[in-house]
């Protein structure tokens, strides 16, 4: 089945017809989750996860349901966000290739759209929409924390190529991915924000070593990468050389949109309603009392209040940014909300679960709640800590004075960093 879009990009199909057709297609072609984890689907192991995601994404592409909001010339459908919303609506509860959702579709491709050369856009966007290439971000560094612009990973120009050395960290599923956007320093003699470039890097290349990091909950999705003289062709710079902070800032903006649920490219629901599942599980798993206990009802009520308010906030901030009521930096407001909400929900679930969060029978969901509590601060750390977020809101939304910084207006090589060894002078 294919959708015809008129040459001018006009819509060949109204929303209602699209919704009905998508619903029918989804029911006939996708597998219901039937209780499976929405992210992993029916994958049997890590390798299978990638294969399944790529196969399902290809199926979506062939049926005309991939990249609904991406331009037609790059393999998308060129449709307004309402069509993506309609597809999310009909596909909820079915196995989707969520592996592609973030960062590939919601962060990487939008940044390539913003800064890519015509060649880069034609090369990379359709391939991802077809499910052929999965992306990862190489942003954070072990030495940098939330200070992304303080990158120490270096890309040195050698004729037609850049040579990459250094290390990146907190990249999710790097070993499953095919390509990465990597922020690296290309000029050490200018202030920190002026000497960065963003490179398109092939993940499985000679010189790149990937190690998995074991998370407090036992999973090992996060990775660290080490670059030893990795060769990157010079035409694989995204945007201008030394203008990488501009590119990275846009990338971070797309990341905030993705995390706050306002990205038009997301394939999953933008609300936080499902966050209540763990709270509900805790309530149901209680030996006695449960929802008949007035104390438990207070906690369930609070959880529902927090998630519903967050959903309302996401919509309000997205509208406010679109209409100019608030600056784009206001995307940090839902990011802060998301972090604070998830922290509280994890605590609520623990509280309801009681001692069964620390000692449990097989198949008792309360054990997961105890483990989840251990990693509770994750949503307040990943994607820039909530402290950085509060700086952004107070400075760029409320207009308050910026924090003093010792690294502005001086060559980056003279800036104090966490580098273990002295940096070579080029």
């Amino acid at each position: 089945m294919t959708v015809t879009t008129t040459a001018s990009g006009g819509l060949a199909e109204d929303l209602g017809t699209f919704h009905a057709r998508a619903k029918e297609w989804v029911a006939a072609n996708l597998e219901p989750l039937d209780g499976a984890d929405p992210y992993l689907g029916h994958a049997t192991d890590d390798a299978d996860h990638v294969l399944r995601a790529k196969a399902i994404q290809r199926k979506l592409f062939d049926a005309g349901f991939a990249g609904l909001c991406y331009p037609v010339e790059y393999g998308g459908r060129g449709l307004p966000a309402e069509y993506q919303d309609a597809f999310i609506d009909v596909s909820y509860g079915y196995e989707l290739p969520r592996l592609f959702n973030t960062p590939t579709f919601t962060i990487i491709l939008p940044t390539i759209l913003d800064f890519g050369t015509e060649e880069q856009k034609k090369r990379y966007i359709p391939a991802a929409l077809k499910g052929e290439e999965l992306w990862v971000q190489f942003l954070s560094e072990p030495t940098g924390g939330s200070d992304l612009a303080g990158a120490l990973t270096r890309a040195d120009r050698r004729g037609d190529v850049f040579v990459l050395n250094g290390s990146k960290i907190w990249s999710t599923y790097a070993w499953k991915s095919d390509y990465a956007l990597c922020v690296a320093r290309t000029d050490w003699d200018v202030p920190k924000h002026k000497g960065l470039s963003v490179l398109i890097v092939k993940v499985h290349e000679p010189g790149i070593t990937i190690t998995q990091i074991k998370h407090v909950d036992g999973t090992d999705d996060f990775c660290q990468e080490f670059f030893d003289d990795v060769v990157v062709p010079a035409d694989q710079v995204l945007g201008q050389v030394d203008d990488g902070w501009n590119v990275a800032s846009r990338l971070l903006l797309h990341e905030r949109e993705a995390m706050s649920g306002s990205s038009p490219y997301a394939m999953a629901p933008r609300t936080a309603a499902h966050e209540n599942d763990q709270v509900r599980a805790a309530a149901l798993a209680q030996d006695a009392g449960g929802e008949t206990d007035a104390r438990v009802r207070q906690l369930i009520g609070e959880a529902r209040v927090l998630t519903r308010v967050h959903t309302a906030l996401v919509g309000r901030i997205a509208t406010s940014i679109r209409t100019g009521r608030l600056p784009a930096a206001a995307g940090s407001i839902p990011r802060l909300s998301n972090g604070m909400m998830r922290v509280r929900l994890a605590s609520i679930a623990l509280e309801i679960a009681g001692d069964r969060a620390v000692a449990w029978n097989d198949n008792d969901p309360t054990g997961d709640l105890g483990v989840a509590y251990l990693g509770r601060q994750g949503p307040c750390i990943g994607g820039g800590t909530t402290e950085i977020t509060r700086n952004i809101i107070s400075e760029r939304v409320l207009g308050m004075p910026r924090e003093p910084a010792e690294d502005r207006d001086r060559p980056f090589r003279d800036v104090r960093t966490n580098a273990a060894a002295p940096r070579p002078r080029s």
Partner: protein
Amino acid sequence: MDLDLTSDQQLLRDTTRKFLQATVPLTAVRALAENGAGFDRGWWQRGAELGWTSLLVDERRGGGSISGQGLRDLALVAEEMGAMVSPGPLIATNVVAQTLSREAEELASRVLPGLLSGESIAAWCVAEPGRDITPDGMTLQARRDGAEFVLDGVKRPVDAGGQADWLLVTATGSEGLSQFLVPSSAPGLRITRLRGLDLVRQHAEIRFDGVRVPASAVVGVLGGAAPSFEAQLQTVLVLQCAEIVGATDRVFDFTVQYAFDRSSFGRALASYQALKHRFADMKLWLESAQAITVDATRAAQDGDPEAGEVARIAKAYVAERCPELIQDCIQMHGGIGVTWDHDLHLYLRRVVADRQTYGDPMHQRDCVAILAGGRP
């Protein structure tokens, strides 16, 4: 607050704002408090001319909305009144007018014209000492006696109960949940004005000792008042949230300004990270409160199936967070913030009054959990 206003709605908001600024600036509110009057009836009638009393009343009954969505219009007025901690029985009168317009033929034609013009005032008698604001929480008894009904019980606190000419009384009895419209002059009523936190919003205790009313005083269906009760409650909760958000928005605004203007140790307060982070949190809470209030207003306006839940979610969040936000603003002001002369306490009084009445956040959370399937 609502980001999607028609030009007519903007006009209503601006007209209301200008009228309030001209007639009841905070100095006037303080003066009203000292007089003990609460509000001036002539002033209320001028407000009625702006549309304050007609937005929830059907056009064929002399009312009419601005946008075709009366509750959304009225929420704008409530927000402006919150921003000025304005006097006036806005919530009390409108919630009664809404039900009379929808439910009562004969009573409506007799009573609504006075409410619409502002000549008379109404109050909803619902809260009872130590009882929840739910149909099951009602204990005031309505007993049939021939062609009449006899009302016995206590309502407290009744918003505008000491000023109202008409009382909409929610009662229980062998017939089930019923509502009656009773003139405040009815024999057997004992109305005691209570001392109150808000300087101009007054509450009363109303005792019904064998108050006899004719069958024509029944509003809507005898024994079938539960849907009206729910609609009234949704309207009240939405308007309370709008009022709280209006007040909090104003306080946040002038507190941010204060942080820019005030210096300490040679720097503006706004330059301290410890304070900047608190302002960032406050901005998050304020935007969240505004967002959920708009969602709740629209859901109640549209008769959305989730309207009951969203209204309670909104009250639970807004009434919990906003008083805390204002307390934080007081903290930002330092010592001046806890003085009588500073206006901060006027706003805090209003939002706390809204917080505690018609069901506090703890009650709302319980309702939300029960609506989600929890059992009481």
